[in-house]
């Protein structure tokens, strides 16, 4: 394989999507796919840049796999166009597309050896036999499967099969690699390790990856950018940090990670500060907010991630900054490195609080236990205002 030592997309900086002049490598332009009455993908437009590791994230039936299958050529869009490297490939059959796919089930050919599987796509390339052999060897080295070249798929473990599938999909040096739940069939330990292998390979080869996954952790660790999909629509596109810390809609906030969401009404708006009355919290919440300011009186949702709330048994002093509310611990989940508390507020609302157990303590010395009256504090900058 050509080892590209330059970071992917270095010509246009690390974040080509921020560059107004950058040309997208893959352009999905108003694509809709209907199966009968059911709209699987609804007027989706999306630009993906060269060298990106882009993730399509969503629950089952959100249209992410259909979108990927349209990119591979297994489904034809009902409307819209697909471009790859400037070439319209909407009507191209799968076997003419410079895109290869790694299937969720791996779809290894059971009657062929590892070597034959990896080399299958090369039959159609204009290569000499020696070149073909070399290419297969390079790929097997890349995924560390050279000693198993003569095995059949049923003689391999799940992780080995996954690597054969990856090598096979990379064999033709595709312009874009489509990965359908690439780690879905692996167990948790193996998944973590493979995740980083995948990133390393992607970085080494500089191939654009599009990954479909329902696993948000997978998407967060793998991807340069994530598109969160729901019912055929893209709800938000952004880097993992943007998606997690600055969700734009209630759906995205709720879908990614765990979050406390409360209904509220904007009371007053100052410079970068919004005060929201939240009846469920029994208090006004001060929110640090930039960008478009909501109008006073607007109905909004406010959201706080559980790990951004501090929990204490002592009432914070008057000098404490941030929002403070009182409650009672109802449930406690101890996970070792952290604990999850469910705190009931006087209004009856439950708040989830996630605290790292940074101090070694036995059961009697815990921060808080069941039935404890506690105070929760969270900074104005930790609160998200959701208008949608």
């Amino acid at each position, binding site marked *: 394989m050509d080892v590209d030592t330059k970071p992917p997309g270095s010509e246009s900086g690390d974040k080509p999507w921020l560059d107004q002049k950058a040309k997208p490598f893959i352009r999905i332009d108003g694509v809709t796919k209907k199966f009968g009455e059911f709209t699987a993908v609804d007027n989706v437009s999306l630009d993906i840049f060269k060298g990106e590791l882009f993730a399509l994230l969503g629950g089952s039936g959100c249209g992410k796999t259909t979108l990927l299958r349209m990119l591979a*050529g297994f489904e034809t869009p009902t409307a819209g166009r697909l471009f790859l490297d400037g070439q319209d490939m909407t009507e191209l059959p799968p076997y003419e597309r410079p895109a290869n796919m790694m299937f969720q089930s791996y779809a290894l050919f*059971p009657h062929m050896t590892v070597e034959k599987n990896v080399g299958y796509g090369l039959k159609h390339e204009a290569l000499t036999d020696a070149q073909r052999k070399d290419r297969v060897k390079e790929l097997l080295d890349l995924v560390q499967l050279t000693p198993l070249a003569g095995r059949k798929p049923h003689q391999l473990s799940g992780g080995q099969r996954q690597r054969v599938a990856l090598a096979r999909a990379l064999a033709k040096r595709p312009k874009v690699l489509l990965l359908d739940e690439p780690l879905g069939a692996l167990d948790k330990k193996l998944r973590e390790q493979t995740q980083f292998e995948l990133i390393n390979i992607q970085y080494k080869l500089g191939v654009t990856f599009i990954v479909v996954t329902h696993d948000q952790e997978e998407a967060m660790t793998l991807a340069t950018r994530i598109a969160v999909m729901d019912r055929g629509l893209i709800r938000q596109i952004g880097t993992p940090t943007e998606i997690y810390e600055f969700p734009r809609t209630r759906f995205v906030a709720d879908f990614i990670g765990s979050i406390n969401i409360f209904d509220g009404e904007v009371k007053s708006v100052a410079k970068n500060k919004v005060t929201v009355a939240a009846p469920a919290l029994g208090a006004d919440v001060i929110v640090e907010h930039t960008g478009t300011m909501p109008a006073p009186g607007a109905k909004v949702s406010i959201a706080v991630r559980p790990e951004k709330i501090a929990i204490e048994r002592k009432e914070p002093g008057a000098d404490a900054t941030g929002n403070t509310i009182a409650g009672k611990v109802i449930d406690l989940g101890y996970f070792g490195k952290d604990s999850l508390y469910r705190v009931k507020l006087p209004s009856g609302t439950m708040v989830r609080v996630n605290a790292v157990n940074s101090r070694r303590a036995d059961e009697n010395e815990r921060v808080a236990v069941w039935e404890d009256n506690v105070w929760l504090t969270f900074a104005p900058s930790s609160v998200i205002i959701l208008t949608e």
Partner: protein
Amino acid sequence: MAALAPAPQAVQGDESHLPKAHSWRQWLDREAWRKTIIAIPYLWLLFFFIAPFLIVLAISAGTSQVGIPPVIWKSTFPFGTLDNYVFLTQDDIYWQGYLNSLRNAAISTFFALLIGYPMALGIARASSTWRNVLLLLVILPFWTSFLLRVYAWIGLLGNTSWFNRGLTSILATFFPFWVTGDHIQMMNTNFAVVLGIVYSYLPFMILPLYATLEKLDRTLDEAAMDLGSKPWEVFRDITLPLSLPGIIAGAMLVFIPATGEYVIPSLMGRGDSPMIGRVLADEFFQNRDWPVASAVAVALLAVLVIPIMIYNFFQAREARRSAS
């Protein structure tokens, strides 16, 4: 971390929390019952296949006589003789009979595969509602007597039938140099035999093929197509090799009975070069030479069984090799 605490999960297969089974259930579940149920068909085979076969084998080692039974054995060791088998090699009619049978069976198997494969593939790829209808249509001819269907073909192929006449006039219009006259001789030819066999045994080809093709993982086709194979290359590289077990099963189900076929060649075939089933029947009923007839039957079984055993041997070796 959606759940506060993992819910206690029931261990699968652990039924210790269930009430104990009643004694009559335990009695029904006993291993002995399973063995009994498996034993019944084997006993059936033992009594109605192995035992008669041993009798035939014994007769084939005897000498024919005029009397009842029309066979006699030597009174001294080894009691039997191989003369009947030697005799099979001396008269042309026997080996020609075998050859006719094997050739007609092979040709029929080939055409059954040629016709059956696309049908099986079509059924396997049809929507699930259509699939059952199409399968039913394949099995439908079995609801009519086999003999009746053969006679129907005789009626169609005969020189004076509307079918023969119509076909002849159509062919004569398009290929005037090739087809002349008002009919084509179709009855009492090898063509008629092959046609009859292909028609009668086609379901036996289609059903195992369908069973194999229906189970094939279609994502393999997509993977091959994704890697640059056009649809016919996908068929050549993926579908065809993976359906080989179905092809072999279907081919055997057609080839084996077709080799020993008696009714179709007797009714539709040529009288001057009979297939082995006809030779065998004539030996029994016309010549009343039971020992030679039995030798013909045993030799036929050997002709059919030995290639299958060789095939199975290699299959098993291949399976062992790929498993290690």
